C-alpha cells in the first residue's frame, strides 16, 4: 500500500519526466557521454584516457572532479558585458533546453502525459528544441567580445543550415504515419517496424543534423578552441560556463530522445501495462536507454572524424544533408502511399 502510493507519487509525470529524467537523467547522460567521449577517443588513439582519478571505474571520477571545479570556481563578470543578459541567458538556455521534455510522451496512456493532449507533440517538441541556439546568439552578443560575436555568428550560420535539416528529417515519420502525435507514431512502429530500418535516409539525415547543430565534438564549429577561443562562451567562467557546456550535451540528449521515439520505435518491442511501473517507468527507461545509445554513438564519432571548417560544414549541409533529408521525406511519403506502415 505504502509502496504503491510512493510509486504513484514518483510516477507523477512532471516529477518523473521533467525533474528526474529531465534534469538528473540528462545530467547523468551528459556526464557519461563526456567520459565515454574521452575514453573512446583514447582507446582509438592508443592512449588510456582518464585513469588515475579512479582506476576501478575507468577514471569516471574525473568528470565529478571537473564538475566540482566548475561549481567552486570564481565567476568573473567583465565590466563591459550586458549584465542582465550575461547572467540570465545561461540559466534560460538550460530551462529552454529541458522544456521539450514536457511535450514528449513517454507512455501510451493519457494518465502519464505531462500535458493533456499529445495531438501535435512532435511539432511542438521540435519547435521548442530550436529555441536554445537563439539564446546562444543572445549570450554571445551580451558578452561584447569579438570572439563571442564571431562564435555567435558561426552558431547562427550552423543552426540555419542544420536545424532546417533536423526538422525536415524528424518530420519525415509524421509524413509516413500521417500524424504529429508521437504516441501514434510509436504505436505504428510496434513491434520492430522501426522507421530507422524502413527509412534509413531520414534517420541518417536527422543523426547528421543533430550532430552538427548541437556542435558535437569534432564538429564544434561555433566554439572551436583553435579558431575562436571558446566561441560564444569566451567570457564565461565557473558555473555559468558549465551550464553552457552542459547545455549542448543536454540538447543533444533531448534530440536523441525524440529520435529514439520517432525512428527507433520508442518503447516498441515492449507493450506497456496500465499501472505506473509497467505503464510509465519501464517504457520511459527503455526510451532513455535508446537515447543514451544514440548519444554515445555520437560521442564515439569524435575519435573517427576530423574537424570541419565552417564553409565545409555549410557546404555539406546545403549540398549533402538537405537533399538527404528531402529524399527521406519523399521516401516516407512513398511509405505512407504504399501503406507500408
Amino acid at each position, binding site marked *: 500500500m505504502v509502496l504503491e502510493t510512493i510509486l504513484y507519487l514518483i510516477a507523477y509525470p512532471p516529477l518523473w519526466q521533467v525533474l528526474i529524467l529531465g534534469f538528473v537523467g540528462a545530467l547523468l547522460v551528459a556526464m557519461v557521454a563526456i567520459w565515454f567521449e574521452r575514453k573512446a577517443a583514447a582507446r*582509438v588513439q592508443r*592512449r588510456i584516457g582518464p585513469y588515475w582519478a579512479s582506476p576501478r571505474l575507468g577514471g569516471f571520477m574525473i568528470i565529478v572532479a571537473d564538475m566540482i571545479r566548475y561549481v567552486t570556481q570564481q565567476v568573473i563578470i567583465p565590466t563591459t558585458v550586458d549584465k542582465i543578459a550575461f547572467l540570465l541567458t545561461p540559466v534560460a538556455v538550460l530551462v529552454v533546453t529541458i522544456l521539450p521534455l514536457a511535450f514528449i510522451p513517454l507512455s501510451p496512456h493519457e494518465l502519464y502525459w505531462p500535458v493533456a493532449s499529445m495531438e501535435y507533440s512532435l511539432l511542438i517538441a521540435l519547435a521548442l528544441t530550436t529555441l536554445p541556439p537563439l539564446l546562444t546568439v543572445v549570450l554571445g552578443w551580451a558578452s561584447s567580445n569579438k570572439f563571442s560575436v564571431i562564435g555567435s555568428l558561426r552558431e547562427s550560420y550552423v543552426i540555419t543550415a542544420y536545424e532546417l535539416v533536423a526538422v525536415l528529417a524528424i518530420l519525415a515519420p509524421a509524413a509516413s504515419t500521417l500524424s504529429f502525435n508521437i504516441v501514434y507514431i510509436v504505436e505504428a512502429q510496434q513491434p520492430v517496424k522501426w522507421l530507422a530500418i524502413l527509412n534509413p535516409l531520414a534517420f541518417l539525415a536527422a543523426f547528421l543534423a543533430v550532430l552538427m547543430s548541437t556542435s558535437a565534438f569534432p564538429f564544434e564549429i561555433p566554439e572551436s578552441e583553435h579558431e575562436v577561443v571558446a566561441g560564444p562562451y569566451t567570457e564565461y567562467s565557473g558555473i555559468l560556463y558549465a551550464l553552457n557546456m552542459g547545455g549542448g550535451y543536454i540538447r543533444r540528449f533531448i534530440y536523441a530522445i525524440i529520435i529514439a521515439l520517432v525512428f527507433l520505435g520508442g518503447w516498441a518491442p515492449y507493450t506497456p501495462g496500465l499501472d505506473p511501473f509497467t505503464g510509465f517507468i519501464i517504457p520511459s527507461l527503455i526510451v532513455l536507454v535508446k537515447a543514451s545509445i544514440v548519444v554515445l554513438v555520437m560521442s*564515439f564519432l569524435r*575519435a*573517427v572524424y576530423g574537424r570541419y571548417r565552417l564553409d565545409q560544414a555549410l557546404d555539406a549541409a546545403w549540398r549533402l544533408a538537405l537533399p538527404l533529408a528531402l529524399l527521406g521525406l519523399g521516401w516516407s511519403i512513398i511509405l505512407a502511399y504504399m501503406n507500408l506502415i
Partner: protein
Amino acid sequence: MPARVSLKSLKRRGGLFEGIKSNIQALAVGVKYFIDPQRSTLLYPKEYIEHRPGYRGFIVFIKDKCISCAACARICPSAAMKMVRVTEVDPKHPDKPRQKQYPVINYQRCIFCGYCVDICPTEALYHTPFQDVVYESLADMFLTLEAFQLEPGRPSVSEGSPVVYEVDEERGLIKRRR
C-alpha cells in the same frame, strides 16, 4: 582598404560512392581500434621500462677518482653541470686544508647526452641504466655534491612491474610485459 580575399577551391575527388566508401572505411577502422585497443601508454609508477645495459640514464659521480679538470662542465651542451669549490682535508698534509673543485649536476637542464661521461679522463662519472626524472620540487633537481655521489632511487621498481617497448611489423610500437 580591406584586404581582398580570394577563395581557393579544390576540385572534389571521387563521387558520392567514393565518399560513402571512405566514410565507412574510417568508421570500420575506428570500431576495430575501439574493440581491440593497442595502447602504448606507460602507467608510470605501476610500470617501468627495462632498458638495455648501455642506456644513458642518471649520472653518478665518484669523488675519489676526480682530478678537478672541469672537462665535464665545459663539454656540457646544456650547461647542466657546474663546478663547485669545496674546502677539504688534504691527505698529504692533514694539518693544511686545501680547496678543490668538483662537478655537480642540475637535472632541470640535463639532456642525458652522456658527453660528460665520455670525456672524463679518469672515468669518475658513470651512467645508471634508468632515468626516472620525478621529483617533488624543482629545488630537488639540483643535486648537491653529496647527492651526486649516490645512485638515485627508483620508486617505480619497488611498486611496479617491468615492461619493454618493441616494434611490431603490423601493429607498430607496442608495449609488452616482461
